[in-house]
C-alpha cells in the first residue's frame, strides 16, 4: 500500500477512528491496533514477506531479553552476535547475494575463468534495510547497556513495524520511539493539524514535484545519447528534484501520519539543497540514516579520536557503506565514494562543523558568498546523483560525457518542452516555499497560521487541487522503497 494511493486514504481514516474512538480506553488496545494495522499495511505488498518481518521482530525481541538476562559477558556476546549475524545475513541474502555472485563471476571471467554462480530469483522484501536497521540499533544499544530490553512484545513489535515508518523510515531509535509507544497518548488537536499539513506537503512533493520531474528524468537517463549537453543538464536537475521530492515527501507523509496517532518520529530532512558544504548537506539529507551510521559505525570505528588518518579512513568507510546500503550496484558505491571525496576538504581542514545553523537565519536573502557556496554544493550533489540514477557506472560516465560536450550551450530540444516549462515553474514555486519557511520543520508547518481562515483554506485547497491534477491512474512507487 503506497502513501499516494487511494487504498491508503481509505486505510488511514479507518485506523485513525478505531484508534481514537474504539481502542482509546487502554494503551494495550491502541498498540495492538497499531501492530495489526501495520502488519496489514505490510502484507498489502506481499503477505509472504510478513513472516520475514515477524521473524526479524521475534529474533531481536528474544535476543534483547536474553542479553538483558545474561549472567556472563560471553553469554551476552553470544546473543548479540546471533542477532547481528542473522539480521545482516538476511539483508545480505536478499539484497546483496546476487550482486556478489555476479560481480565475482564477472571478475573471474575477466581472467578467463568461466563460472556460473547460482543466483536468487526473489524480489527484495520491501523495507528490509529499514526494519533491519531498526532491529540492529536496538540490540546494539542493549549490548552497550544504553537501554534496557523491552519486555512487552507488542510494544517492541510496534517500535519496529509502526506502519508510517515501516518501509522507508525514518530509521528510529529505541530511546526515542519506545518511550512514546509505552506512554499513554491523548489526542492533541494542534499536533494532528500539523500532521495533516505535513501529509499535504509530502503529497505535494511526491505527486506534483517528484512524479512530474520523474517523467523528464527518465526520458533523459533512458537514452542520453539522443540529447544535447544542455538537455542532459536539465535531466540531471529533474532527477535531483525528483529524488528529493520523492524521499522527503515520503518522510513528510510518514511524520505527519505518525502525528495523527500522537507519535513524533525523527526528522529526516532539513532543507538539504540549501546547504553550504557537503558536510552540512549530510546533516540535512536522510538525517536518520546519517546519524545511524555515525552512532553505530563511525564512532565504534574510532570516529575522529585517532587523528586525521583515522578520520579520513572512517569517513570513507561510512560513505562506502552508505552507498552500498542503498543498493547492490556499483553506481551506489561510486555515489558514496564521490560524496566521501566531496567531504574530504572539510574533514582535513576541520571545517565540517562550520555550518550548523540554517543558512541566512532570520534574513530573507543569503549573502553572495553563502549563495555561491550553496550553488557549488548543489552542483556537486547533482553530479553525484547522476551515478545514483544511472543503471551502470558506464551509463553514468556516458551521461557526463554527454553533458560536457559542445552541445552544452545549445538550446535543449526534446518532446514535451511545454510540460517541462510547467514543471520548472512548479519546482521554482516549491523552492521559494522551502526557502521562505526553511527555519520551520517543514515548509508548510506555519504557512498561513496568521491568515484569515478562508484564505488559509483556499491555499491548502489550491495545493490539493494541484495534487489531484497531477495524480496518475497507475501507482508510482517511492524510490526509497527499493532500498
Amino acid at each position: 500500500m503506497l502513501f499516494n494511493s487511494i487504498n491508503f486514504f481509505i486505510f488511514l481514516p479507518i485506523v485513525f477512528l478505531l484508534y481514537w474512538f474504539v481502542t482509546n480506553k487502554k494503551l494495550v488496545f491502541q498498540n495492538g491496533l497499531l501492530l495489526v494495522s501495520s502488519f496489514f499495511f505490510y502484507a498489502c505488498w506481499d503477505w509472504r514477506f510478513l513472516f520475514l518481518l515477524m521473524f526479524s521482530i521475534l529474533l531481536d525481541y528474544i535476543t534483547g531479553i536474553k542479553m538483558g538476562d545474561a549472567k556472563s559477558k560471553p553469554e551476552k556476546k553470544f546473543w548479540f552476535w546471533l542477532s547481528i549475524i542473522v539480521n545482516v545475513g538476511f539483508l545480505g541474502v536478499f539484497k546483496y547475494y546476487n550482486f556478489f555472485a555476479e560481480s565475482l563471476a564477472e571478475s573471474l571471467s575477466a581472467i578467463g575463468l568461466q563460472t556460473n554462480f547460482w543466483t536468487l530469483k526473489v524480489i527484495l522484501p520491501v523495507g528490509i534495510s529499514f526494519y533491519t536497521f531498526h532491529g540492529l540499533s536496538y540490540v546494539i544499544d542493549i549490548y552497550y547497556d544504553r537501554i534496557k530490553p523491552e519486555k512487552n512484545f507488542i510494544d517492541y513489535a510496534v517500535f519496529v513495524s509502526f506502519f508510517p515508518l515501516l518501509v522507508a523510515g525514518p530509521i528510529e531509535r529505541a530511546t526515542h520511539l519506545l518511550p512514546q509507544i509505552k506512554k499513554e497518548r491523548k489526542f492533541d488537536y494542534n499536533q494532528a493539524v500539523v500532521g495533516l499539513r505535513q501529509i499535504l506537503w509530502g503529497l505535494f512533493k511526491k505527486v506534483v514535484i517528484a512524479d512530474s520531474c520523474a517523467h523528464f528524468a527518465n526520458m533523459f537517463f533512458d537514452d542520453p545519447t539522443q540529447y544535447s549537453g544542455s538537455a542532459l543538464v536539465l535531466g540531471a536537475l529533474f532527477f535531483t528534484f525528483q529524488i528529493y521530492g520523492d524521499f522527503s515527501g515520503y518522510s513528510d507523509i510518514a511524520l505527519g501520519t505518525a502525528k495523527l496517532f500522537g507519535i513524533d518520529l525523527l526528522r529526516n530532512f532539513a532543507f538539504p539543497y540549501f546547504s553550504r558544504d557537503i558536510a552540512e548537506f549530510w546533516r540535512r539529507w536522510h538525517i536518520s540514516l546519517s546519524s545511524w551510521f555515525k552512532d553505530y559505525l563511525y564512532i565504534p570505528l574510532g570516529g575522529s579520536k585517532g587523528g586525521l588518518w583515522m578520520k579520513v579512513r572512517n569517513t570513507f568507510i561510512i560513505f562506502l557503506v552508505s552507498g552500498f546500503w542503498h543498493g547492490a550496484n556499483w553506481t551506489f558505491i561510486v555515489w558514496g565514494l564521490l560524496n566521501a571525496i566531496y567531504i574530504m576538504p572539510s574533514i582535513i581542514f576541520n571545517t565540517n562543523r562550520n555550518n550548523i545553523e540554517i543558512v541566512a537565519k532570520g534574513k530573507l536573502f543569503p549573502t553572495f558568498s553563502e549563495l555561491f557556496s550553496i550553488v557549488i554544493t548543489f552542483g556537486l550533489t547533482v553530479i553525484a546523483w547522476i551515478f545514483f540514477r544511472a543503471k551502470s557506472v558506464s551509463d553514468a560516465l556516458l551521461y557526463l560525457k554527454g553533458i560536457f560536450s559542445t552541445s552544452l550551450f545549445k538550446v535543449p530540444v526534446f518532446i514535451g518542452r511545454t510540460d517541462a516549462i510547467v514543471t520548472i515553474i512548479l519546482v521554482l514555486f516549491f523552492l521559494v516555499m522551502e526557502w521562505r519557511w526553511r527555519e520551520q520543520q517543514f515548509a508548510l508547518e506555519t504557512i498561513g497560521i496568521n491568515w484569515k481562515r478562508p484564505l488559509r483554506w483556499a491555499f491548502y485547497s489550491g495545493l490539493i487541487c494541484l495534487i489531484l491534477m497531477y495524480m496518475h491512474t497507475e501507482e508510482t512507487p517511492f524510490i526509497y522503497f527499493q532500498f
Partner: protein
Amino acid sequence: MKKFLIKLFIFLSPFILVSIFFEIYLRTVNTHYKEKINGLYKNKDKVEVLILGNSHANYGINPAYISMESYNMAMVNQPLLHDYLILEKVINSLPNLKKAIISIDYHTLYFSDDGIRNNWVYYDYGIDTNIEYATKLSRFWLGYTPKVAFSMLKYDIKRSIYNLKNEKPTLNFKAENGVSFTDTIHNGWLGYTGTNPKKFNDNVVKSRADVFNQNITRKDERVKNLKVFKSMLELLKKKNIKTYVITMPCHPKFRAMIDENVRQKDIFEIEKIIKDYNAVYIDFFDNINQQKLYYDCDHLNKQGAVIFSNLLNISIQ
C-alpha cells in the same frame, strides 16, 4: 477530537461534493467509446464488415468507402486483447457479419496496454480485464483521474457555449487533438483533419519511432499476443467469417526509422498462422507516401483515409 473532525469535515466537504459530482458526471457523460459501441449495436443487423485495431485503423479506415456495410471498432491504443474481447462480446449480436479486418502493425504484437484504457473499456464496453475493484467503483479518482475528468468537463462546457452561439453540430464527446470539434462520427469512424507539419520534424518522428522500437523488445508480449491472435482467428473461423489481417500505411520518414527485419519476421509468423484459418494477410505499410495524406508520421488524415479505404475496399472484394 470533535472539533478536529468537524473542522476537517467542513474543510473537505467541497472536495467530497466535487467527488460526488464527478462520480455522477463520469457515469453519464458521453465518450468516444460509448459512441462507438452504441453505434455498433444500433447498426447490428446491417454490419457486414467489422474493423478492429489501434489508432492507425481507427483514423485510417473510413467505412463509408467500403462497399459493404462496415463498422470501425478500432480505437486509440487498443491492444489485440481488447480487439479479441470486443469481438467475443459483439459477434453473436451481428447476424450479417461476413468479414473482419484486423489491423496488425509494426508494434501490435508487442503491445498490451495495462493503463487507463483498461478502465474505460470496462466502463463503456463492459469488458473486464481484471481491473481493481476500487477502480470499478471510483471513476473520478481512479478510473479517469481528476486530470482527465476535469478536461472532459472543460470540453463539455466549451461545447455547450459553442452550441449556444452556433447552429453547427459538435461532437458530443471529447476526441483527441487533431480531430475537428465540429466533426461527426460515421459508423465508428472519425478522422484527423489536415496535416500537422510539426509532427514531421525529424526529432519528433524519431521519438515516435523510438516508442515503437522500444515496444518491439518485449518478447513476452509477443508470445501472449500471438496466442490472442490465434484465438481471434479461431473464433472468426468458427463463425465462418472471412478475416483480413492488414498492416496500415505509415509515412516514409517513419518507415525509415523502424526495424524492418523485425517487421518481416512478424509478417512471416502471421502468414504462417493464418494458413490454418479462413484469413488473408495484406501489407499496406508502404502504400501511401504523400505527407499531405497523413496527420502525423503514422496516422492517415481524412483525405488519406479516403484513399486508403478505397484501396482496402478493392483488396477485400
